[in-house]
């Protein structure tokens, strides 16, 4: 076979590349490049018309210079000219230049499209492919507009060459991804699906990718692909290894195509047709059997290709989650891989087992590998493998092995890489809470966490331990004793001081009987840490001291003396000073009764999903695997939800349920409300928590002096001390799932009802999409808004083969929202047939600016079981934007007018997504404001303006977003005439980048 000689065809190019390679310094290189650029420029400008070869050579040189990292600002025209050459090599260079250097230069795009058009129509397969590849590589909207209609025709035409079909299929896929609205599906759907039967396996390979993507978007339209894919797969897996000749790779028949077909099948539930299902099961069994056969080759390529198919088959088995035998076989196979000498296989087995652990059929089988997995945690050299081991331990954890797993994770934490410590901390905290039968164990575990990895213990974690201790009086004495002992250590982490201060302040009396932990000893112990702590912790300790005064009159004098000292009363920090002054006054003036009322023990916290779990779910970034992790968690939660809905809770926890305490309420993570075992109603919120929690929750806001502004000190010292009305929501705030979301509605959903808000934030910048999906039901939304009015079309899709009965869907507005938003619905039809969709229309009117969101309450009967859950409706304040165009001068004038400090909210945050200008623009426009070009002197910044329409008022809003690509950060500034609006908009928008 003739090989390609170096740089054949274009000698000048080869010489130039050699010259560049010989440059000894960067300066020399730049000099050589500038010389070449000057030369090319003069050639292009010269009087003499260049022949095709020279043009090709110079364009290719320009491309090379660009790829070295230099800017190219000419030559585009010459490249476009090459498209009309009838020589392949010239055309190829022209197309390549355009693909690599394309910018939406409007005068050229027409010419480029013209060239493409000619080639598409040429019936020359080589030229057609060049033009299709160019469209697939560039994929711009202009190209979609010009060619979206032609490509399906080329794809399904009977006389199209196979290689052109391959390119056309993927070209169509690209256009469908970038401009779905321009690529109508319809009459050619059936013929595209039929490509799965094509004789040419290359065509099938390309077409499968296209069909998979389309099937993800509209499963119903591509349903027929299931049987064809199974038939194709079956032929491949049962073929002798030589049958497929060109497509056999190291004795494995068409591995890539098999993988693609198996992925296509993962768009669908298991086939309902028995014969089809049987055929698929046979395929999967054959694949599992092959894994046990002796290898046909010792080459790693052979085993990799074989295992690629095997892992995809296992993924499908897990996706279907309906064949216990297959699931257990898959688990056993992965178990063998756990001890394989190839690191890749161990890693993938750990990863794959994680999803198996969430299936009730294979959960037990996964658990049998616990020792191997723990061993992996201790011995694997690659941190990413250890990370997978941690994930798997987390996934396989249940009541039977929780103590062992938590202990292993804790001991691993002592030496774990910094990159994964925070995540392990969160996981340990979640597991310890979720499977705590004995809360003393929980308290020990969390204190251990703080000892081992105090820096990684986030606020969520230590808030949570306090919340649990407050809510469970059986553990309070133990907690007090334990923190007291832990605080004896000469050096303890500040987080321990926080937890210790809080718990002793509340429950120190429970251990005060022992002379070794008398009130004075407790106080001295806490105060010995005071000077080493940061301001927020000191503030917390001061609150603990005033609580001590109430609990233990005998230490009042000592504490008053401390409060009275100059270092407190005249502290430079305004928050500390204020606390010292107010607490001192309070302890001097108030009678014991008033003190007791004001400084009463904390009431139980309302139960909600752990904020730690929420954080774990939110976590994204290096060292983590967000997509899969989230999917796993989602899957797991869905199961939990279903299980609790079906009343078959504790299914897999098995024998442990016999233990006395494991009533359903033990699982404090579950959404079911924990019965509050103390009579005190939540409304008797003690004043104590005001400064206390304010400082815990929002240390950053301390500088603004929130105490004086929110709670005038007269109130604090007043005789009856009526609790500030916002106290309740503040309390909730501290532990609310989304710390930014403002006062979270408390009683949104009826008891035992989960409220899903997973997709909520995706709708901030768009109006249509899937809001919710589980195995039974898909809820899609289409919404439109005009001024202060909105209409939402809600589509309920029954994904099952049974009817839903007694279906109802109603909108619940939390109290805080009722005066601000009107939502009108009519009862929906009470039944949804199998596979059918029900549409419901909601009409919405915004009366006033608002923060919480309404909840759609859904209830129906499926197979005799009542399903009941809530979905947070994505109705946010920004939906009522009308964009406002304005000139730079106007913008700055208004900007200045909105200059009062409370009108501006600024937030600096880290980018969560790649910082793509176009995406950002789309998001800002999706958010509802006009995107103003040429306003900001810095062109990389984004500036927007709009007016929020409510029935009662209109609120003008200006925004500015400054990306810093170097630091991967954004600064978002919002100015509106109303502080609550600025804050809410900032919270909503900042989550989007």
């Amino acid at each position, binding site marked *: *076979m003739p090989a*390609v000689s*170096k*740089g054949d065809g274009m000698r000048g190019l*080869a010489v130039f*590349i050699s010259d560049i390679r010989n440059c000894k310094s960067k300066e020399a290189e730049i000099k050589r490049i500038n010389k070449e650029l000057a030369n090319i420029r003069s050639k292009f400008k010269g009087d003499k018309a260049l022949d095709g070869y020279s043009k090709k050579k110079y364009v290719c040189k320009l491309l090379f210079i660009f*790829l070295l990292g230099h800017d190219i600002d000419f030559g585009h025209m010459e490249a476009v000219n090459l498209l009309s050459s009838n020589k*392949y090599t010239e055309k*190829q260079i022209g197309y*390549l230049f355009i693909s690599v250097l394309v910018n939406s230069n409007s005068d050229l795009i027409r010419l480029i499209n013209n060239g493409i058009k000619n080639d598409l129509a040429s019936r020359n397969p*080589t030229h057609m492919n060049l033009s299709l590849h160019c469209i697939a590589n560039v994929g711009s909207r202009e190209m979609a507009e010009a060619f979206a209609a032609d490509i399906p025709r080329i794809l399904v035409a009977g006389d199209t060459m196979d290689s052109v079909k391959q*390119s056309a299929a*993927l070209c169509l896929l*690209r256009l469908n*991804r970038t401009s779905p609205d321009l690529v109508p599906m319809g009459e050619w759907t059936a013929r595209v699906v039929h490509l799965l039967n094509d004789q040419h396996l*290359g065509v099938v*390979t*390309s077409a499968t*990718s296209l069909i998979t*993507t389309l099937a993800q*978007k509209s499963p*119903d339209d591509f349903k027929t692909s299931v049987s064809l894919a199974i038939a194709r797969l079956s032929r491949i897996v049962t073929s002798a290894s030589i049958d497929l*000749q*060109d497509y056999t790779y190291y004795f494995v028949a*068409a*591995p*890539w195509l098999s993988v693609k077909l198996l992925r296509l099948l993962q768009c669908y539930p298991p086939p309902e047709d028995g014969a089809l299902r049987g055929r698929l099961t046979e395929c999967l069994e054959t694949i599992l059997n092959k894994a046990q056969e002796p290898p046909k080759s010792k080459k790693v*390529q052979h085993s*990799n290709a074989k295992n*690629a198919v095997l*892992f995809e088959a296992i993924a499908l088995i897990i996706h279907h989650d309906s064949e216990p035998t297959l699931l257990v076989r898959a688990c056993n196979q992965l178990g063998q891989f756990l001890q394989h000498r190839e*690191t*890749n296989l161990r890693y*993938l087995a750990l990863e794959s087992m994680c999803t198996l652990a969430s299936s009730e059929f294979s959960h037990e089988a996964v658990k049998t590998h616990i020792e191997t997995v723990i061993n992996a945690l201790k011995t694997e*050299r*690659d941190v*990413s493998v250890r990370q997978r081991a941690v994930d798997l331990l987390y996934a396989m954890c249940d009541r039977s092995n929780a103590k062992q797993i938590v202990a292993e994770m804790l001991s691993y934490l002592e030496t774990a890489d910094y990159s994964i410590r925070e995540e392990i901390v969160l996981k340990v905290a979640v597991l310890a809470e979720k499977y705590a039968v004995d809360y003393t164990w929980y308290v020990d575990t969390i204190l251990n966490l703080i000892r081992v990895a105090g820096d990684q213990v986030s606020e969520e974690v230590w808030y949570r331990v306090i919340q649990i201790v407050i809510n469970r009086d059986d553990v309070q004495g133990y907690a007090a004793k334990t923190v007291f002992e832990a605080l004896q250590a000469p050096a303890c982490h500040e987080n321990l001081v926080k937890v210790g201060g809080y718990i002793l302040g509340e429950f120190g009396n429970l251990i005060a009987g022992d002379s070794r932990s008398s009130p004075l000893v407790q106080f001295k112990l806490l105060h010995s840490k005071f000077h080493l702590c940061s301001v927020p912790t000191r503030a917390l300790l001061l609150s603990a001291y005033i609580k001590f005064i109430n609990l233990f009159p005998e230490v009042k004098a000592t504490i008053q003396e401390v409060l009275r000292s100059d270092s407190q009363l005249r502290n430079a920090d305004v928050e500390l000073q204020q606390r010292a002054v107010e607490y001192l006054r309070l302890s001097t003036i108030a009678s014991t009764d008033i003190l007791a009322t004001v400084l009463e023990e904390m009431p139980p916290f309302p139960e909600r999903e752990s904020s730690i779990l929420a954080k774990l779910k939110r976590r994204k970034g*290096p*060292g*983590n*695997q*967000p*997509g*899969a992790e989230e999917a796993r968690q989602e899957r797991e939660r869905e199961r939990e939800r279903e299980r609790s809905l079906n009343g078959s809770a504790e299914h897999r926890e098995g024998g442990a349920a016999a233990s006395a305490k494991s009533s359903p309420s033990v699982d404090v993570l579950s959404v079911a409300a924990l019965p509050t075992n103390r009579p005190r109603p939540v409304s008797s919120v003690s004043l104590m928590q005001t400064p206390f929690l304010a400082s815990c929750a929002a240390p950053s806001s301390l500088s603004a002096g929130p105490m004086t502004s929110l709670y005038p000190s007269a109130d604090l010292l007043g005789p009856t001390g009526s609790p500030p009305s916002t106290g309740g929501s503040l309390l909730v705030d501290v532990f609310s799932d989304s710390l930014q979301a403002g006062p979270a509605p408390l009683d949104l959903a009826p008891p035992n009802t989960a409220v899903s808000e997973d997709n909520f934030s995706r709708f901030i910048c768009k109006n*249509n*999409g*899937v809001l919710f999906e589980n195995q039974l039901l898909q809820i899609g939304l*289409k919404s439109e808004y005009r001024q202060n009015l909105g209409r939402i079309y809600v*589509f309920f899709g029954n994904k099952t083969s049974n009817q839903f009965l007694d279906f109802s869907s109603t909108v619940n507005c939390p109290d805080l929202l009722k005066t601000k938003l009107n939502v*009108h*619905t009519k009862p929906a039809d009470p039944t949804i*047939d199998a596979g059918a*969709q*029900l549409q419901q229309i909601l*009409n919405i009117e915004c009366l006033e600016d608002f923060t919480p969101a309404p909840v759609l309450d859904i209830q129906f009967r499926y197979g005799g079981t009542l399903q009941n859950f809530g979905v947070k409706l994505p109705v946010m304040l920004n939906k009522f934007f009308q964009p406002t165009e304005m000139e730079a001068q106007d913008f700055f004038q208004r900007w200045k007018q909105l200059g009062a400090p409370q009108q501006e909210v600024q937030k600096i945050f880290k980018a969560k997504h*790649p910082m*793509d*200008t176009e995406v950002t623009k789309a998001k800002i426009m999706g958010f509802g404001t006009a995107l103003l070009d040429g306003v900001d002197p810095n062109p990389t910044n984004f500036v927007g303006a709009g007016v929020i329409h409510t*029935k009662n008022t209109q609120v003008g809003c200006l925004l500015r977003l400054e990306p810093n*690509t170097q630091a991967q950060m954004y600064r978002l500034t919002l100015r509106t005439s109303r502080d609550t609006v600025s804050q809410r908009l900032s919270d909503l928008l900042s989550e989007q980048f």
Partner: protein
Amino acid sequence: MAVTSTQSSRTSGGGLWIPVESWPSIRFILIQNRAGKTRLAKWYMQFDDDEKQKLIEEVHAVVTVRDAKHTNFVEFRNFKIIYRRYAGLYFCICVDVTDNNLAYLEGIHNFVEVLNEYFHNVCELDLVFNFYKVYTVVDEMFLAGEIRETSQTKVLKQLLMLQSLE
């Protein structure tokens, strides 16, 4: 109060109503040498030039520190990198976290075997001097971020046919 008409109506099943965003499986393909020089960069997603440069540097940083005992997979931002080292060259494919690791690992090898055949014992310099041909090879095997053709015979036949054209 703005009560407009409310209604509830039934539509038949089928015809999903929502465009779901989707991304290509392969976000980019990079070939780099040990010093970090890029020998091929093929992007299947829109990135601006600064972003591309950053990605190139980051990939180099995460891949070169790994040794033979490590896996051929690295988590990378919200994606993962599947890579394999051939002499002084790292071949890296960045894919979605849910994609099949081994399929792309062998996808790399398949690609390398084609290059090896096409350039007769390929070496780094072949990729430098023939960079514009390497793009053609890539487009034959990967397109729109998906695997297009896997048969070495078919790809090489096509490449030689193109080679013979003027």
